[in-house]
Every structure is written in C-alpha cells, then in structure tokens.
C-alpha cells in the first residue's frame, strides 16, 4: 500500500512540475531570460577559466599593448594596462553574480527572520521591528551603502555587507505583509484548532505559503543587487584591485571615452545583459509562482 502511495506522490509532483513548466514556457520572454541567466551562470562557473588571457584576470599587465582596438586577438580590445577586456569582462561575471547573490541571500534571510517575527508575533515586537525597518527604508539606501562600504574599506565581503544592510527591510516588509495575510488564512486557523504549536504554524503553514513571493522578489532583486554592486564599484567603493568587477571597470574606462570606447562599452553591456536576463527570468517566475501578481 505504501508503495502505491509513493508512486502517487511522485506522479503528483511530476504533474505539478509539468504544469509550472508549461506556464513558464507560455512566455517567450522568460525563456529568453532563462537562457541569458544560464549563460551568466555558465560564465560565473567557468568565466575565469575560459578567459583567453587568464593571467590578465589575476592582475597581469602587458603595458606594451595598451589600448588596442577590438581585433581577432582581443575581440573587446585591451585596456589602459594592455589587459584583454574580454577576459576581464568574462572574469567579472562570477564577481558580480556571486556578490549579487550574496546580497540577496543575506538580505532575504535577515528580512524573512525580521518580517516573520514581526508579522507572526504582532504587538510591540512588530512595532519595534517595523519602525526600525521603516526607518532603514527611509534612508537613501545607496548613500547608506556607500557610507558603510567606505567605513569598512574596500573588499568583496565588506561591499556585500554594506549593501545587504540596506537590503533586508524590503524583505521584512514583504514577509511581514504576507505573514499577516497568511495568519488570517482559514488553514492557519485550522492548524491552530488542531493544536499546532506557534512554531509549527509558522514553519509548516505560514512560511511555505509565502515562499513564492519571496523567491520572486529574490529573482527580481538579483538584477538590482548586481546593479548596486556595480554602482558601488562605479563610485569607487568596491572590490580591491585586481579583482575584475564590471562597475569598477566602467568607472576606470569612463576616462577613456570616446576614443577607447571599448573599454567602457563592453563591461557596461555585460552588466546590462546579466541584469536583463535576471529581470526577464524573475518576471517569468512571478507568472509561475505567484499567479496573484500575474499581469
């Protein structure tokens, strides 16, 4: 009997997956987004390895070959130190993507904890936590991130901390709202009526049902996190050299426009394409996971 149950279980899962995939496939744009994200993920994993001039990624220079225009040897040209721009752009992918992901991950974990605590407990805990996150939302996040990043000094980890610090309140608000809403759901009342502990109600009944909007927000936020990482790099408060990072590359290359436009345009395009991909994918995911918000 158990075996039969299990096969039912599997086929039900597969069916749900098929349905989700069908809905996702409905939108050609989200497929394009998924393909772009797949490319980005590919370069995240292998970008540094596949770079035609890996030594340039590690900070190697070739000062006799500065500012050569795009050619077969250097499809994206070379920069002010003779480094291959294509290699730097490729190797910049893991930096931006992992930084973006770390920001979104830390921000969402913090935000979910705060939002769930606030929404589920209500009362003064809610008041204190939400007033605080409202305050954080009122602060200009980029300036906050800049101030914190400048305070902590340059570096990958510091940059992520600085951005994530300004990132969580959005999740806290979202999660709190969703928790408040879910708390009023009949199935939550039902769970309480069968004697489920608050812990169980929160983790078994409320949180699983608000995962979708959080995942949707995460996928949409990935793009914005990548943008913010690049923005800090652009302002000059980012990673340490020689870490190849798109925003930093763009900020340096800015001085060489318009003559050596390739040094600026390609990192900028890479940034745009990555963010574009994540945003398209996020849109598609929203359609699949959060049909309420379906447009």
């Amino acid at each position, binding site marked *: *009997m158990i075996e*039969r*149950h299990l096969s039912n279980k599997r086929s*039900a899962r597969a069916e749900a997956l098929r349905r989700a995939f069908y809905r996702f496939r409905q939108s050609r744009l989200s497929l394009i987004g998924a393909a772009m994200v797949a490319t980005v993920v590919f370069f995240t994993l292998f970008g540094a390895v596949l770079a035609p001039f890996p030594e340039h990624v590690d900070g190697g220079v070739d000062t006799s070959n500065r500012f050569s225009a795009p050619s077969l040897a250097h499809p994206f040209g070379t920069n002010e130190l003779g480094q291959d721009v294509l290699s730097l752009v490729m190797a910049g992918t893991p930096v931006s993507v992992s930084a973006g992901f770390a920001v979104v991950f830390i921000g969402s974990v913090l935000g979910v904890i705060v939002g769930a605590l606030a929404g589920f407990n209500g009362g003064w805990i809610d008041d204190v936590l939400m007033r605080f996150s409202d305050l954080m939302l009122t602060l200009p996040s980029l300036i906050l991130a800049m101030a914190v990043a400048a305070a902590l000094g340059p570096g990958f980890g510091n940059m992520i901390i600085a951005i994530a610090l300004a990132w969580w309140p959005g999740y806290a608000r979202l999660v709190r709202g969703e928790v408040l809403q879910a708390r009023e759901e009949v199935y939550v009342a*039902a769970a309480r*009526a*069968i004697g489920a502990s608050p812990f169980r109600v929160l983790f078994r009944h409320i949180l699983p*049902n608000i995962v979708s909007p959080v995942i949707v927000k995460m996928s949409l936020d990935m793009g914005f996190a990548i943008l913010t990482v690049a923005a800090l790099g652009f302002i000059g408060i980012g990673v340490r050299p020689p870490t190849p990072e798109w925003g930093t590359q763009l900020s340096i290359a800015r001085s060489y426009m318009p003559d050596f436009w390739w040094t600026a345009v390609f990192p900028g395009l890479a940034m745009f394409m990555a963010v574009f991909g994540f945003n398209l994918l996020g849109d598609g995911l929203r359609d699949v996971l959060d049909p309420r918000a379906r447009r």
Partner: protein
Amino acid sequence: MLEIENVSRTFPARRGLFGSTGGVRALNQVNLSVSKGESLGLVGESGSGKTTLTRQILRLDTPTSGRILFEGQDMAKLGPAALRALRARVQIVFQDPYASLNPRMSVHDIVTEPMLIHRGKLGLDRRQRTDRAAELLELVGLGPQHLYRHPHEFSGGQRQRICIARALAPGPSLLLLDEPTSALDVSVQAQVLNLLIDLQERLGLTYFFISHDLGVIRYICDRVAIIFQGEIKEEGRTQQIFDAPKSEYARSLLAAMPEVRVPD
C-alpha cells in the same frame, strides 16, 4: 458537554490613521449548552456573532467575560498542555473548503498532521498514521489513491470531506461545523450533510452546527439557537422553533426563508 455561560466579547475601539472606531460588542451574555451526542444549530445572519463565538470555543480568542466549560472544565483555566489535549477533543470544519486546506501540503500531510501533533496521546507511528489517514479518507468517502494529491486537485465537496477527515483525525468528541456547506452546490451539500449524519451515528459525535441556512439547520439539528447582534434571541427544539417561533426576529427570519414550495 459544552457549556457557554454568560460569554461576552467586546472588541476595543481602534485608532486608525483617519480617526477611531468605537468599541464593538460582538457577543452579549451568550448562554448555550450542548449535550453529548446531540446537534445544536446556531442560526444568524452575517455579523451576528456566530464566528466570534466559534473562535471563543476553540480558544482562538478569549471572551471579555463569562466562561466556557468543556466537559466541566473551564477552558480559560487550562494550561498549554491541557489546552492541547483539549484541541484533540474539539475540532472544527470551516465554511470555505478552498481556503481551509494548506495548498502546500498533500492530503496525507494534512490528515496526519493532527495525529502528529497529538502523537503523545494517540501513540501512532509514521506508518500507522499513514494507514489511519487512508482509513479516514475512506470513512469520508475518498480513497487512499487521494493521499498524495494536493488540495487544488479536488472539487469543493471533496475538499470539505478532507477537512472532515482532518477534523476526525485526533478523535474528537465535539465537532464545530462553521457553515460547512454554504460554499457548496445543493447536490454536494446534500452529500456532505448525509455524511455528517452518518458519521454522527457511527462515531457518536456531538455537533455544534452554525449556519445561516435555516433549511440545513432544520435538516440536521436537534436543537436550534437563533443569534442576532451578539445575543441569543431564541433557543429550543428544532421542530418547536420552526413551527411556532416565539421571538419577533425568529418569525421574520423564517418568513424570509426562500422555501422551495409551489407558489399559490
């Protein structure tokens, strides 16, 4: 079995952004008692306090004054452990079968959850719980083939059966039925009502049945209480109230009841 003594519930005034609303007296000195094995119907229109009363009985909310005794115990005085034990004895079926099942959980998880929570009392292991869930599904007219489906794969009537199976899982003696059929079509309603009658006979359950549909109440309940604006207007044997209502409100309510009878 269940005694409701002078229960009142007042919602305090709320200060909103644009001003404040006055306090609302949702329940006013409600007295009711349900004996073992009977079905008490509670009739009222929207906003009359029916749902507030169920929340008091389930201890999802606390009365402002008065007390509720279950099998002689004052529910307000129960500690957390005792309250949990009590939750196994008093179960509820909600109005909207579409909203009262967690969409993320399979039927198996939904039906076994009460057994998991009350495993100390029920003493069922994992396998036994699954088997018991299958039994319960058969009891309510579904089958083990439904165990690993999710709620969205079921029709309204089937969902309400799942809700009933869940309510039965911890072995309750009192079932609160909060308009369990008002979201269903008549043909399905009839099936669910018959299932409820059948279960009552087989399991010796006590029903506290809430509805705005007088026909349904008349069909299923031994006694009826009519609630209006938080107050019990009339209470008595079903037959007696439908034949000779005493209060003005009950009379007007019965008069407005859309009965299927051949027009003159």
